[in-house]
């Protein structure tokens, strides 16, 4: 295992920030396309610089903390959100060579750990804002994310059982014959749903359901602190897409095209799918969300583990 060059470590977060910023524009253009309208198309070629314009606007806004808020925690919350997502990218293998720590033997657990810490961003934002809407949003987020983390972890176990390793590099290498989406299709669906709930994207964006909670947990946030929540959400979409690519779609593997391009293509397609979900689906009620989790996804992921275990035992040598 070689040490990654310092340059990679510095460039990765910058690249992800740039991609997340770009994604805000991509999402609006794609939503426009799917809803039969234009979306932002004025600033720069095809509206490309809209993301930059939005960034400049957010940066020049007054940095304001409500006087009734808990200052330290109020500032800490968006930073936690950004940091946990950024750190998770360290273990994602973009190609066999391009990664920071893809050989880490608890790589998958590291991602899960970072995601479980990511809950604090939303919960603390809700608590520190000291406002009713934010508090309700934070509580919804806590319950939703803790519940969906359970199925997320369980749905991954099938992949880990087949590979026999938590290292993401090994998981990709184990898919050279067959992508895990075929033997692990149940795990794939559960993981994807849990991923949407973890990033609290539509249709599972109840922590910020605007028609009942204002803006939910970030009601009191403005300027770049709001921008950090916003960017962390988009970086989270990229993270979940990259994870699904790594775990179920064979990572960088594919014929003809270079590995980096395959990884980008698969991840990009999943990101587009995330945006399509937002364009297409209504938001469920909160109790429906929880019932779906505990009454459908939990049994499905447990059955998936049992089935995978049985098949592995039957095929075990000796």
């Amino acid at each position, binding site marked *: 295992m070689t040490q990654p060059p310092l340059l990679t470590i510095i460039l990765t977060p910058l690249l992800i920030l740039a991609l997340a910023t770009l994604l805000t524009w991509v999402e609006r253009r794609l939503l426009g396309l799917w809803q039969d309208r234009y979306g932002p198309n004025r600033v720069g070629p095809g509206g490309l610089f809209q993301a930059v314009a939005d960034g400049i606007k957010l940066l020049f806004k007054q940095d304001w903390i409500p006087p009734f808020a*808990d200052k*330290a*925690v109020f500032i*800490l919350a968006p930073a936690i959100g950004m940091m946990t997502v950024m750190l998770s990218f360290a273990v994602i293998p973009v190609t066999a060579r391009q990664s920071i720590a893809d050989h*880490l*033997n*608890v790589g998958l*657990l*590291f991602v*899960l*750990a970072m*995601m*479980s*810490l990511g*809950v*604090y961003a939303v*919960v*603390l934002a*809700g*608590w520190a804002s000291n406002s009713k809407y934010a*508090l309700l949003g*934070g*509580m919804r987020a*806590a*319950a939703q*994310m*803790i519940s969906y*983390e359970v199925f997320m*972890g369980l749905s991954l176990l099938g992949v880990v059982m087949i590979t*026999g*390793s*938590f290292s993401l590099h090994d998981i990709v290498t184990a898919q050279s014959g067959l992508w895990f989406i075929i033997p692990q299709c149940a795990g794939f669906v559960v993981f994807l749903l849990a991923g949407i709930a973890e990033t609290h994207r539509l249709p599972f964006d109840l922590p910020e359901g605007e028609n009942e909670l204002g803006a939910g947990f970030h009601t009191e946030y403005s300027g770049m602190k709001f921008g950090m929540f916003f960017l962390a959400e988009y970086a989270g979409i990229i993270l979940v897409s990259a994870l699904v690519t790594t775990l179920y779609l064979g990572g960088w593997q594919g014929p003809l095209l270079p590995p980096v391009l395959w990884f980008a293509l698969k991840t990009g397609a999943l990101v587009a799918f995330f945006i399509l979900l937002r364009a297409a689906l209504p938001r469920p009620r909160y109790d429906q969300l929880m019932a779906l989790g505990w009454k459908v996804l939990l049994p499905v992921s447990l059955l998936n583990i049992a089935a995978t275990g049985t098949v592995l035992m039957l095929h075990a040598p000796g």
Partner: protein
Amino acid sequence: MPVMILFAASLTVIGAVMVITRRIAVHAVLWLVVTFLALACVFTLLGAPFAAALEVIIYAGAIMVLFIFVIMMIGPAQPESDREKEWLRPRAWLGPAILATLLCGELLFGLRATPHTGTPAPITPRDVGLSLFGPCVMMVELASFLLLAGLVTAFHIGRHRPETP
């Protein structure tokens, strides 16, 4: 390596001290999270990345979130924090402090007496699994009994009963 361990270990101690001296419950929980994260660093540096990952996922990521959740549900009560202020009087600390200093001294003495063996070989997730379902399988089963009992109890308490006249 020892410098890193000492740094992480002192963070753990500082975090733990902050936990018991904070007046605001959520701040105390946050310091406890810092303590767990520092503890996870210690585990990693000692060559147990699996234990470190579980420490973060379960303690920092799940149990402490539940603590915060409960604090948010209940909300802080002013009389409660006044009462806790009473507990932090210096006189109440004297006895425990003396005993703790004695224990700490004994620990240091014990550590000096045992020879330093260097960093042990890293423990992989596979090793943990083999020992859990090998020599320790009895304890795993007993722990799962306990958890099941807890689950059944929680279900019983939380169940909606039809109103009896």
